[in-house]
């Protein structure tokens, strides 16, 4: 049978369709809850909760004596919640830092789970219980009602989160303010932890306790690269979760008998790598290109400013408008190497900002406009810093253009007044005829 036929067969199989739907919904639910956890800086609590589910599963099994999924999930939820509260309690009451406590709780609960697991496998029904599958997850082998339970729970989680979106958003962003508004923050904290634990617990069957954390963390940090809005981030994260859930399930079904969890995790991580590299705005490639451009631009601006300031000094000292600046003066003032200085001066010459006579440089008319603008911008920026309560530093560009283009505007007048006060007004203006201030 060709691979294509196998794929077709897999896709038309009713159970596989259910499994795909289940892992997709699971991906959405954990992506959504994971992004809230990420913003609350609770990413690794999900990891601890997942590990802590193991003893709960075993206890439930030992109590009931058979593999009833609902009971196992309830057991997992309880120990998961206990672990989450242990972490919060120990961190709050001792000198230990949160990461140490998470690690401690995670490993001790898991170790205890392993102890119980050996007990389970000694019990008559435990031998074939398949509880060990919970460690790595085996979505493909899930059948009938189990899948429906998983899909149903995931759907409820998505529904509750979207209904309570605005409360959870506030709790994440500003818990103190949320409390001030009269929101029941303790209850919301509990509710969120419960949702998180529930997502982890239903995910364990598909992904396993060890890798479940990835399904919470990876899609959400991948989504973080694409947007700054919480709403969009949650939707994207859900989408990434869904894609990785489905891709992982298909891959592992295709390979027959391979655990599902690792493939889901690898798919999610690939999405993360792609996001990290190629996302617009925050992607590394774009950033890297932008940094090179920015560094170059900064250096050009520094040189133009330096030449302008030298001319300004010369003018203030001697009244001469036609001063020249040597390459050496520029290089030593900016602590650039001579080679770098010459390269950038050459660029500026080509752009028509400079005139060159041997080793000496001056500004063309265009260069004077540019240099004046840059120096003005720097000094307006300083005024903004000095008078923060009056001007917004972020708006220094708009303020600068106001000062130059509409000097009669009241705000511009005030800035010009302050520049005069502090002797910071650029002395050579291309606008009012050279030297006229």
């Amino acid at each position: 049978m060709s691979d294509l036929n196998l794929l077709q067969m897999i896709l038309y199989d009713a159970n596989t369709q259910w499994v795909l739907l289940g892992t997709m919904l699971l991906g959405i639910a954990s992506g959504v809850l994971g992004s809230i956890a990420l913003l609350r800086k609770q990413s690794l609590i999900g990891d601890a909760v997942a590990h802590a589910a193991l003893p709960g599963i075993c206890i439930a099994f030992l109590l009931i004596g058979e593999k009833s999924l609902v009971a196992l999930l309830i057991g997992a939820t309880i120990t998961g919640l206990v672990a989450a509260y242990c972490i919060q309690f120990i961190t709050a009451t001792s000198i230990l830092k949160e990461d140490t406590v998470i690690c401690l709780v995670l490993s001790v609960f898991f170790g205890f789970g392993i102890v119980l697991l050996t007990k389970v496998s000694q019990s008559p029904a435990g031998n074939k219980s398949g509880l060990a599958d919970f460690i790595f997850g085996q979505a493909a082998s899930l059948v009938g009602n189990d899948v429906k339970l998983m899909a149903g729970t995931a759907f409820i989680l998505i529904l509750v989160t979207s209904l309570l979106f605005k409360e959870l958003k506030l709790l994440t962003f500003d818990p103190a303010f949320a409390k001030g508004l009269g929101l029941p923050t303790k209850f919301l904290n509990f509710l969120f932890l419960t949702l998180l634990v529930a997502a982890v617990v239903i995910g364990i069957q598909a992904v396993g306790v060890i890798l479940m954390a990835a399904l919470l963390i990876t899609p959400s940090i991948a989504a973080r690269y694409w947007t700054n809005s919480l709403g969009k981030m949650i939707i994207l994260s859900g989408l990434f979760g869904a894609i990785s859930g489905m891709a992982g399930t298909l891959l592992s079904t295709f390979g027959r008998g391979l655990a599902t969890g690792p493939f889901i995790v690898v798919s999610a991580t690939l999405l993360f790598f792609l996001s990290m590299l190629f996302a617009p705005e925050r992607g590394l490639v774009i950033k890297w290109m932008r940094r090179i451009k920015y560094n170059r631009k900064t250096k050009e601006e520094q040189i133009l400013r330096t030449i302008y300031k030298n001319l300004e000094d010369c003018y203030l000292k001697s009244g001469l408008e036609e001063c020249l600046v040597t390459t050496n003066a520029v290089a030593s003032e900016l602590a650039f190497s001579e080679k770098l200085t010459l390269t950038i001066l050459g660029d500026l010459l080509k752009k028509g900002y400079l005139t060159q006579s041997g080793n000496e440089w001056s500004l063309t008319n265009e260069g004077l406009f540019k240099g004046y603008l840059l120096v003005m911008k720097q000094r307006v920026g300083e005024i903004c810093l000095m008078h923060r309560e009056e001007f917004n530093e972020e708006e220094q560009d708009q303020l600068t253009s106001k000062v130059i283009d509409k000097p009669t505007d009241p705000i511009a007048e005030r800035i010009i007044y302050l520049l005069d006060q502090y002797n910071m007004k650029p002395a050579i203006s291309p606008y009012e005829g050279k030297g006229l201030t």
Partner: protein
Amino acid sequence: MSYELWILTVGSLAGMTCGMVGCFLILRKLAMLADAISHSVLLGIVLAFLISQSMSGIYMLVGAAMVGLITAFLVQLFSSNGVQEDASIGVVFTFLFAVGVILISLYANDVHLDVDHALMGEITFVPWDLVQWWFLPPLPKAFLMLSIVFILNIIIIVLFYKEFKITSFDPQMAAAIGIPVLLIHYLLMGMVSITTVASFDSVGAILVVAMLVAPGASAYLLTDKLSVMLVLSALFGVMAAVAGYYSATWLNVSISGSMASLNGIIFLLVFLFSPTKGLISKKLSSSI
């Protein structure tokens, strides 16, 4: 040496080695990195096997140390590129671990190493897995590896004690007086990796984490001196290993799981009853 004594020796060695390295992880707020490394060394072991086609200890140590350092490096790389540190730990170790698991399942027939074993360890087999070196009588492989790593760790800690101390307490000051902070960081990460891999066989990946973190955390709540903290954590490591072994045989359950649980119980006792930093003494002194 009797079967039981070998298991106790190996367990105690693992407890001491992990406990001491763990102290520095706790003080540097790097505990989760230990968790990450202990998972991702699985990939190192698999790769070492696939490349060298042997299960020899040296290849394992080298492979694990490399992947451990790569883990630490990737975490650093992502968190310096705008990913929250805890989240970047989560991404890195789950990914490397997942790749390790997939490789094991793909080459399942060739690799004499199953995932359950890697996770939970199999200390009961330790006394039978013998190797002979030089003039020594045949000794358990796990014992030899742990002894080497233990001695190596002690030497490194003694030689670089003051550098470890100052870079843990005040990395900025350390950098300002010319101590290579980054080098010390990666030295520690290397120690964590080889410690993890040496303990792997006996206690398994996840329980290594309990051994790394719990003894140090308990010791931290009992003393104000770094040197005492190191000694105490080694002591707690041994106690948990010995008590863990006996309770496991008594209850007939997993030995490594039981050692991890005992670590948790020791921590709980210290957390409650420590004379200066315990919950009860704090409650008492605040109510007076």
